[in-house]
């Protein structure tokens, strides 16, 4: 029997706003399967987002949902988690939302290692506003605000997260949809700040300006440019040039922020200094 998504969806909110050919629906389904598999209760889970196409996702899912200001989802989520450390908090964000306007909140949440799961939908472009270059737009690609080809260097979101102290990083793609489930399940289970980057396609504002003839071409590009991390690591550098690894790329156990904070609270309340 096909998986029944309806119990996690706000079914009356469809159709969604995403364009034909957009891969966000694929990822939405994977996230629902993952939340189900991880056993999160809807009443005990908050899903927080910023601004952008990806950030519209919380409106479609039946949880405690919060659609905030541009870039600030992680900061709102931090307030929620600090006062309800036993609840589950997920952030859905995009490449521009997380790493441009929200870059400061992103790195500091990583540094604190607060137990929030951040899923970054990376489609390499500002889609909602019509195709302006983001910090992850490939150098040379065309965007409405880089009409002669992007001269900006690209952020690697996961290297950024790891450098800032994130204790769990993983990458998946909309093409490898079935693989996303496990990444998100493991990210949710991880005690600490986890970042899952999902590579997505925006045919409307990115693909058609960058020689992708169809949304399918964009999915096939994902197929060709992302390798399971185990295979990736075995290959010589010349065979991995221009490609990136997928899967769980890094995981470590470190003290989690709310646990640290509330153990301090306990110590103070017991008369310690």
């Amino acid at each position, binding site marked *: 029997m096909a998986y029944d998504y309806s119990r996690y969806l706000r079914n009356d909110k469809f159709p969604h706003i995403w364009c034909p050919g957009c891969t966000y629906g694929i990822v939405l389904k994977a996230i629902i399967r993952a939340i189900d598999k991880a056993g999160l209760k809807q009443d005990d889970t908050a899903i927080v987002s910023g601004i952008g196409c990806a950030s519209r996702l919380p409106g479609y899912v039946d949880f405690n949902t919060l*659609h*905030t200001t541009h870039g600030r989802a992680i900061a709102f989520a931090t307030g929620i988690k*600090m006062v309800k450390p036993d609840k589950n908090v997920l952030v859905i964000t995009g490449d521009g939302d997380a790493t441009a306007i929200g870059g400061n909140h992103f790195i500091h949440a990583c540094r604190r290692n607060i137990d929030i799961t951040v899923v970054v939908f990376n489609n390499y472009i500002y889609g909602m506003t019509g195709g302006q270059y983001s910090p992850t737009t490939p150098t040379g690609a065309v965007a409405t605000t880089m009409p002669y080809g992007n001269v900006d260097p690209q952020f690697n979101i996961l290297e950024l997260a790891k450098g800032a102290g994130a204790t769990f990083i993983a990458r998946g793609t909309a093409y490898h949809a079935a693989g996303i489930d496990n990444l998100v399940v493991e990210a949710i289970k991880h005690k600490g700040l986890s970042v899952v980057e999902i590579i997505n396609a925006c045919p409307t504002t990115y693909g058609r300006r960058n020689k992708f003839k169809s949304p399918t071409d964009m999915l096939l590009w994902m197929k060709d440019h992302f390798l399971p991390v185990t295979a990736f690591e075995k290959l010589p550098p010349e065979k991995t040039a221009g490609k990136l690894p997928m899967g769980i790329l890094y995981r470590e156990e470190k003290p989690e922020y709310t646990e640290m904070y509330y153990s301090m609270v306990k110590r103070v309340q017991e008369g310690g200094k």
Partner: protein
Amino acid sequence: MARQVKLFQGNEACAYGALYAGCSFFAGYPITPSTEVAEVMAKELPKRGGAFMQMEDEIASMAAIIGASLAGAKSMTATSGPGFSLKQENIGFAAIAEVPCVVVNVMRGGPSTGVPTGPGQSDIMQCRWGTHGDHPIITITPAYVQEIFSETVRAFNLAEKYRNPVIIAFDEIVGHMRERIEIPEPGELEVIDRKKPDVPPEEYFPYDSSKGDIPPMANFFEGYRYHVTGLNHDRTGFPINACELVHIEEERLLRKIYANRDDIVKNDEYMLDDAEVAVFAYGACGRSAREAVDMARKEGIKIGLLRPLTMWPFPDREVEALAERVKAIIVPELSLGQIILEVERCSKGKCRIDGIFRVDGEPISPFQILDKVKEVL
């Protein structure tokens, strides 16, 4: 039992007032001259099981207190000058999403970095109009350390009662001034908590105004799963596009505060009954004005003081009534003339309005005010 007596700064009184009101989450960022509010909260919240966070910036602090409030905590942030500018976008979010929270603005000189250690009152219009779009706001303007304590409690009460951000604005002078304060006993001051829904989750709409303009508020994780957005939304909380409903909902937001202005507006009226000249002043200027009234009365000059403790919504009717019966209203301000514009608007040309403006980092003295009174008489 005798009340505890303390020698507190205004900033300390603000923090302890917040704790009295039940604040259990504070997020902030260091900035002069408000930092002591954060320092007291960092020390006191853990003792009470609450949480303090020094966030990465002012924007994050404002965001975090909104998140915490949605999760059920009474929450506050404190800032000054540039920090207040940075918080504005999320103050608008709290207004449209109707999330109770308290923002303390210890006012310094500006614009930009300005005079970080000097007093100012030049953010008073920013308190009203700092964030974009039509929005309701409440601003409280205490002037004495004891008053900062009790008005902070009132700020939380108004935030909770009206589901709205409330700004507490006082200048650096009263923020850093030390005065004797008696700490009210628990129960002595009223403490109001947000109204919860009395319907089951399946019948709950987070912005249901069918029973009044202030919708009951469920916290996250209490079984009422709903959506919160900064987009214009209908009673369900879900976005609506430009249509008649946006207009209706925006009007409700404003009406929520302005139809209840009598409950929110609060003034200290001193010797106004027979006054020929009135002073309209708040914060440090309100203190000088009171002294000026006492000095003038000793000389037989009939002046009085209207000192607003709520600046927004503005005491428009009170100012108009005053303008009808005095020769002049004097408005001393630590700015180059901001709140005088509101006094002029509300007095409708019924009396003379004169300002005393000062932004050199020094307070306006009672003598300055007295001189101006003599000039207009």
